[in-house]
């Protein structure tokens, strides 16, 4: 150890330090027992006024806001009292996202694209929340918020074209699959770098306030990415300028193979981080669609009333792998999904509607079939525009466009070089299929 940086102490009686490296409770093959999780009864959590002082929410940052009880009924002050049509609409979005995820995951396995990410088990954190916002409130998503687009009526074919990077992809095949963008749907371009969207959402909200607008901003970030400095920047700017913004932290327990302990989850809740900044902070059962809706609505109303930003932790579970690129059986127990104590959001909403006498299993089956069929049909339609790597991509020149508003001389030269290379490779002209040009 001796060297210029050797600072080890010698010859005293102080105890040796040891490094704590977090370890999840369960690894592959382990029996899963979630009894250590404190799951309160639905309806027990108080609901402060939307314009309350941020620190009045402190108990809720360590609690878990729940509405749907084991009896499938809505309980307590957070019950958003949605009518049956709205609940059925929500269920319809759920069914659609799940059907879409299944199909796209399979498409990746069939080699139609390079990558896909499901949101299985977390649907309520994007769909129910999106429904609580106004359609023109601006959202700055992370990568698992396809539910927001579905809830806002973004055309499925646009999503599939993007996933296939084909000639119909309005992002011109430049982005990794699922990194959507739709200004028309007030949906910001997804980056792929983590948590960068959080200060951007705050900036958008500040702009809305500067302009005396009435729209608010919402952003989503995973619990793992809250460790990024950007998240700290976002919380700081949000509180300093009292920005009309909602910081949604989706705590799905896992960041690829790293459990929430690597973002500090062993020490306190993710909601509780907001308190230190002076943000209103709520911790919500992320598998309870009514609680997700109610919390997001509370925060949106608060922001719109100029009463300040809110941080919401959605406590949920990532039921599938991080993406098509990892196999969760390699790092966590398969029992976790089965034993997850907060259930499945779609199932819970379905059972609630049935308990209300507003739904039944037959209609559910018909809904699921309808979604699967629509996704299948739309997928076929999208495939006419091509799939990744089969030649039907955007015109070659588009590669150099949009780096700047205008093409500078050096990019013009490089574009000419690229075209020359292609002509050299394909002197007879570009083959129709099977090449990337």
């Amino acid at each position, binding site marked *: 150890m001796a060297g210029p940086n050797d600072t080890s102490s010698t010859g005293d009686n102080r105890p040796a330090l040891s490094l704590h490296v977090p370890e999840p409770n369960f690894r592959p093959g382990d029996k899963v027992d979630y009894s250590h999780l404190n799951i309160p009864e639905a309806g027990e959590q108080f609901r402060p006024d939307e314009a309350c002082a941020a620190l009045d929410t402190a108990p809720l940052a360590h609690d878990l806001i729940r509405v749907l009880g084991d009896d499938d009924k809505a309980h307590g002050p957070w019950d958003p009292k949605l009518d049956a049509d709205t609940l059925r609409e929500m269920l319809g979005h759920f069914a659609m996202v799940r059907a879409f995820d299944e199909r796209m995951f399979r498409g990746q396995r069939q080699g139609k694209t390079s990558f896909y990410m499901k949101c299985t088990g977390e649907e309520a954190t994007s769909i129910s929340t999106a429904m609580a916002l106004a359609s023109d409130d601006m959202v700055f998503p992370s990568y698992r918020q396809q539910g927001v687009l579905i809830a806002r009526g973004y055309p499925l074919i646009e999503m599939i074209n993007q996933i296939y990077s084909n000639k119909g992809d309005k992002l011109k095949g430049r982005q990794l699959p699922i990194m959507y963008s739709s200004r028309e749907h007030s949906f910001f*371009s997804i980056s792929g770098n983590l948590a960068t969207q959080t*200060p*951007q959402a705050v*900036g958008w909200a500040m702009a809305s306030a500067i302009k005396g607008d009435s729209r608010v901003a919402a952003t989503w970030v995973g619990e793992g990415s809250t460790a990024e400095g950007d998240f700290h920047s976002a919380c700081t*700017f949000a509180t300093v300028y009292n920005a009309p913004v909602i910081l949604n932290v989706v705590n799905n327990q896992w960041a690829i193979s790293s459990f929430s302990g690597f973002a500090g989850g062993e020490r306190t809740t993710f909601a509780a981080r907001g308190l230190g900044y002076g943000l209103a902070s709520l911790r919500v059962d992320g598998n309870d669609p009514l609680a997700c809706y109610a919390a997001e609505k509370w925060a949106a109303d608060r922001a719109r009333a100029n009463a300040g930003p809110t941080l919401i932790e959605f406590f949920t579970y990532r039921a599938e792998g991080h993406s098509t690129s990892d196999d969760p059986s390699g790092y966590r127990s398969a029992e976790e999904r089965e034993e997850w104590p907060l259930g499945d959001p779609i199932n819970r909403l379905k059972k609630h509607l049935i308990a209300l006498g507003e739904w039944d299993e037959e209609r559910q089956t018909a809904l699921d079939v309808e979604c699967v069929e629509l996704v299948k049909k739309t997928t076929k339609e999208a495939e006419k525009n091509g799939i990744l790597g089969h030649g039907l991509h955007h015109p070659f020149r588009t590669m150099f466009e949009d780096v700047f508003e205008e093409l500078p001389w050096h990019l013009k030269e490089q574009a000419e070089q690229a075209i020359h290379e292609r002509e050299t490779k394909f002197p007879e002209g570009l083959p129709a299929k099977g090449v990337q040009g």
Partner: protein
Amino acid sequence: MGETMTKDAAAPEAGTERRLNMIEAINEALDVMMTRDPDTVVFGEDVGYFGGVFRCTAGLQEKHGKSRVFDTPINECGIIGVAVGMGAYGLRPIPEIQFADYIYPGLDQLISEAARLRYRSAGEYIAPMTVRSPFGGGIFGGQTHSQSPESLFTHVAGLKTVIPATPFDAKGLLISAIEDNDPVIFFEPKRIYNGPFSGYYDKPVEPWKRHKDSVVPEGYYKVPLGKARRVTEGEQMTVLAYGTMVHVAQAVCEAKGVEADILDLRTMVPLDIEAIEASVKRTGRCMIVHEATRTSGFGAELSALVQERCFYHLEAPIERVTGFDTPYPHSLEWAYFPGPVRLGEAIDRLLKD
């Protein structure tokens, strides 16, 4: 705007031209744009009530209001991050990073976000921000208040990098940068905020008012991005420089009686390659000067471009005169700085045959 300046700007004495230093010129560009375009916002550390540590934003908050000119937390990632979001909303943010040396916590937001937003969203969202920041040494700033990190930004697809060398250009280039719909890094050579610098640090400081390019028109005008400025015309050699080093190169050439074609590049990206090529082909000799560290500095790019395009016109190896590859030392600042000796020897080598 400072009181003195307001007076100058409002009532220039009859028969005299209005002269501004670089700080006043930058302040005026911000004021002009904030008056013309209600979507512009100025923010950064200490820029609001106080008017900035170098006074570039003095008076702007009072004139344009606290919601358009305001202080920020000490958080460069946040400063650039919120600027991206404001741009997405439709504002035209003009954040200040107090020293270029402080910009690194904001790099991910600049490189991964602002620079690529137009590309990744196929034009749906843009980041029309201008990031102003004082840069360069010569004020005893030590290693955290002296750096010239321009080549970190010129290396990034999607960013424009602008460095003015005179008050006239500072105002006109800044207005162009603000109106530009792409993200622009606008580095202000702080050594020459108050006067041009010959490189002879032991001589008395020269104020801008005796320099011809301190005559700054009132109101709105633009100096286009991507057009170099010919500082002096000469046949013996071409000098490519920007910022403070334009003045140092000019002083050294004058002192040595060398007739050089000195080009102030003004913008690194987009670069005025035509002016460079035409000049080097005419003179056959080229000296590249920057204050930044040498290895992978912007001079390396310039040298490669000149070699690629002008090789058969060159009569001597290209000379690169730069700072050394060390952090900027405090006490030995002038040993680091590419001053008259370093430039003079390079000129001698270029002209010896």
